[in-house]
């Protein structure tokens, strides 16, 4: 069993690293980390009028290929060091590879048929919590829920199994998105309950793998990890990309 953890080197990936290592140790899986250098940035940098607006100073600066290359390299090195530090003391078979490409395609392209894929590409927020101490969580809030999609299929069973592990690891509540036809809801729910073997969970009805609907539900209630069947996510689908950007938490695709 292998987990492919795909990290966009230019974005905050600490949450993803944490989940990936803990899950890999827990289920005794091999961890393959993929440091993805976004090729779109390089393409953008080659446009003649490419300018970058700095987030902190709001100043405008030329966005050249040299700048992007340098930034990508430095970010990759930083992430590799960070990973090595976190992983070296764990009983874990681990590898790290740097690839260049479009984020989702690169991640799915590197994954074998039976690999699980962990992705995280939340969009940048202007008022990120780290900027302002007053916006930090004031109290120890309960862990955000783990969401899992289950439609009664064998892939759904594996999703549910992984979701149980993740919820237990994080001490987080489990919310099961029930897919399938509305008429089968009771049956699917019954199956899910049986599979959960007494683990508590809340059930929410959804239609198939509806990215927009899931994004809305997850965003409203918060999420620490969303697990989906890999087969339900066509690579390059715009809706999935928007889901990743919107929900702000890692997504695990289970074969």
């Amino acid at each position: 069993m292998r987990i492919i953890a795909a990290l966009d080197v230019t974005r905050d990936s600490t949450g993803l690293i944490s989940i990936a290592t803990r899950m890999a140790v827990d289920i005794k899986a091999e961890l393959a980390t993929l440091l993805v250098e976004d090729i779109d940035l390089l393409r953008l940098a080659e446009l003649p009028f490419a300018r970058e607006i700095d987030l902190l100073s709001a100043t405008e600066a030329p966005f050249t290929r040299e700048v992007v290359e340098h930034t990508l390299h430095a970010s990759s090195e930083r992430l590799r060091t960070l990973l090595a530090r976190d992983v070296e003391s764990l009983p874990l078979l681990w590898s790290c590879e740097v690839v260049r490409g479009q984020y989702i395609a690169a991640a799915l392209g590197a994954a074998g048929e039976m690999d699980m894929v962990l992705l995280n590409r939340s969009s940048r927020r202007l008022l990120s919590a780290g900027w302002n101490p007053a916006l930090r969580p004031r109290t120890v809030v309960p862990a955000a829920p783990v969401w899992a999609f289950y439609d009664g299929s064998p892939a759904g069973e594996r999703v549910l199994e992984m979701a149980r592990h993740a919820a237990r690891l994080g001490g987080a509540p489990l919310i099961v998105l029930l897919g399938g036809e509305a008429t089968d809801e009771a049956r699917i729910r019954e199956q899910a309950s049986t599979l959960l073997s007494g683990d508590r969970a809340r059930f929410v009805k959804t239609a198939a793998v509806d990215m927009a609907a899931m994004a809305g539900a997850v965003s409203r209630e918060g999420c620490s990890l969303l697990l989906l069947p890999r087969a339900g996510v066509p690579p390059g689908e715009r809706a999935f990309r928007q889901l990743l950007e919107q929900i702000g938490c890692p997504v695990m695709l289970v074969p």
Partner: protein
Amino acid sequence: MTAKSLPPDRLYTACDPQRFSFDSTQDLQDVEAVPGQERALDALQFAIRMPGKGYNLFALGPSGMGKFTTIRQILAREAASRPVPSDWCYVHNFKDPRHPRALELPPGSGTQLKADLDQFIEDLRGTLSAAFESEHYQSRVHQIEEDAKKRDSDAINELAEESREQNIALVQTPHGFAFAPTDSEGEVLSPEQFEKLDEKERKRIEKHISELQQKLQKVLRQVPVWHRESHEKFKKLNREVAGWAVGSLLDTLVERYTNLPDVLQHLEQVRQHVIENVDELRGESDSSSLLAPRQASPADELYRVNLIVDRAGQKGALVIYEDLPTYANLNGRCEHRAQMGTLVTDFTMIRPGALHRANGGYLILDVRKVLTQPFAWELLKRTLRSGQIRVESLERTLSLISADSIEPQPIPLDVKIVLVGDRLLYYLLYELDPEFQDHFKVAADFEDTLSRSDDNEEVYARLIAMLARHAGVRSVGRDAVARVIDHCARLAGDAEKLSAHLGNITDLLREAEHHADLAAHPAITRDDVEAALNAQLQRSNRISRRIQEEIQRGTLMIATEGGVVGEINGLAVHVLGGFHFGRPVRITATVRLGEGEVVDIEREAELGGEIHSKGVMILSRFLASHYAAGQMLSISASVVFEQSYEPVEGDSASLAELCALLSALAEIPIRQGLAVTGSVNQHGTVQPIGGVNEKIEGFFDVCHARGLTGDQGVLIPAANVKHLMLRSDVVEAAADGRFHVYPVETVDDALELLTGEVAGERGEDGSFPDDTLNRRIEERLLDFSASRERFVRQAANMKSGPHHD
């Protein structure tokens, strides 16, 4: 007329135990005050009752007089009737932490306030946690965060939507955002695709991107403003919640201390501080960093009460005696603790001094100790001058260290200070320290002795009883009391006085009890007192015994029999380690023709002191004026203390020196069985001296060791008879006629006793009668004078040469 020896009852004035109505001190009450010290006690009472600055007291007198005990007893009585002074505590000054505030509290309430605020601190964290974990708070936090998120996402989404409508994507870059043209699927165009667009389209895209960039910059410039707004909302919310939480704890305290405005003010400041610093109190602040200033947990420190003076359970004011009056022990101090390699302090480390504890009451200090402690005297004066106790580190005052320091608010001083010390220090301070008189206006001069009368002996017996009780000594029998009284007269060196040195009496009683123990006496007896006195003597008299031994062996040459011209036994007193003893000293005189000078060999050898030299000058003037006054004094005389190798001071040997000189002039031997003490004036009158008892006993011991002949004795000034308190063996020898004490009033009295010849008085013709001592002396002087004139004449003739008529 030859003086007669004194009868035994004049040699020792005994206290008659039969006149006491008690059997032992058990029957006696304590004295209300030490007898004979009425003047000092009046001064003490005056100082106590006299209001106003500077009416502090200096109790002066030798140590061991019971000054301290007496003063403490009186002050304790006075203090008990005074109101209990205030409690004092230090609290944090929230406006100026370098100057901690002093709070004055009703006596006993400091403990309550301290406990209340300790409890407040204990409750505060829990209360804050509960408030900030409440559903209400979480809900409002969530609302603020959601508002912030919405504004964030709305701003970006609006911009992204606007750009999307023009086939332009808002792309997230490593450090911010950028805009890029996209195809119909939303994918960013490659440079090649972009180049394939027509010129007009490229211009359009560039123009739109430029406009979008400006809009984005505008949005980003708004971000700090949003930060501040969000921050303010959180702060406002936190203040509201903290105010509610702390209010629930403090409102009870506010009601409890409603009559104490200073405490209320402090509680209000605590309330404001909690509200303003709630993040730090909840451990949410960055100040927990290692590099942050001290006070990782302010609530543990800043709201605490440092109770430095606690009067709980106290009745009346206090009398404090500071045994080690160092600067810090008097004034209090600010302690430090090491933190991150430096020394830090705060109001919780303020420690009180004796001045704090005694405030509102009395502080007794040993002035010698105060003066020997660096800067303690200056501190005391400064504090009295300012009327405030200002806790200030000496190290900081002297700039010895540059550690973190504080300047606590001074506390008003209301204390009577009683300095206890000897007279020398009082007079030195009075003369040399101009401020001394301003701060210590009252002197209580304790007497060394008190008059010995029947009434006073009764009171003294009660004093002995009191001292015995205070010392934990068993009762003292009547005879023993009488013996103690006699000893006190001896200590006073006067049969008509009693020593007021209570320390010596207490020591004697303790030592007597030891002997009573050994003898299994239920009460201390006269024998026990005698045994204690003898033991004291034995412990102290090594040197005197060695001197006596050397006299007996002939090393120190003292004659006690026969007669010798120009030699006499003088008497000297030594004081070694508080032990007084007398010894005979050989004084010799020589005369020859000369020019009228009397050479004091001690002076010439620089062994004679000034007073001794004065005595020799006086006797030489007596010689010149008393005999052959019409002629030039034509002798050269010398006097010396034989076998004396140490400085000689005092004039008590001047009578002996004069007698030796006159013996040499008259060539009449002096009885060596007699010793002489006394000073003499220019008219030949004998004047009193000190240490008469020790001197007599010193000569008696020499004679006794050689065997008393019945011809031996001591000549003393008649004025010293009242001082006689001689040892019992001396008195017994005198009673048996084996030893004599002769009082003399004039030189003639002494000469007659010493030579056995009549001195003689000038007759109407101005001359001394034939066959008298004075006649022989005068004739010898006239012979010297005639010889001198003859020599002068011959010398003049030799100088002028032979005459030719």
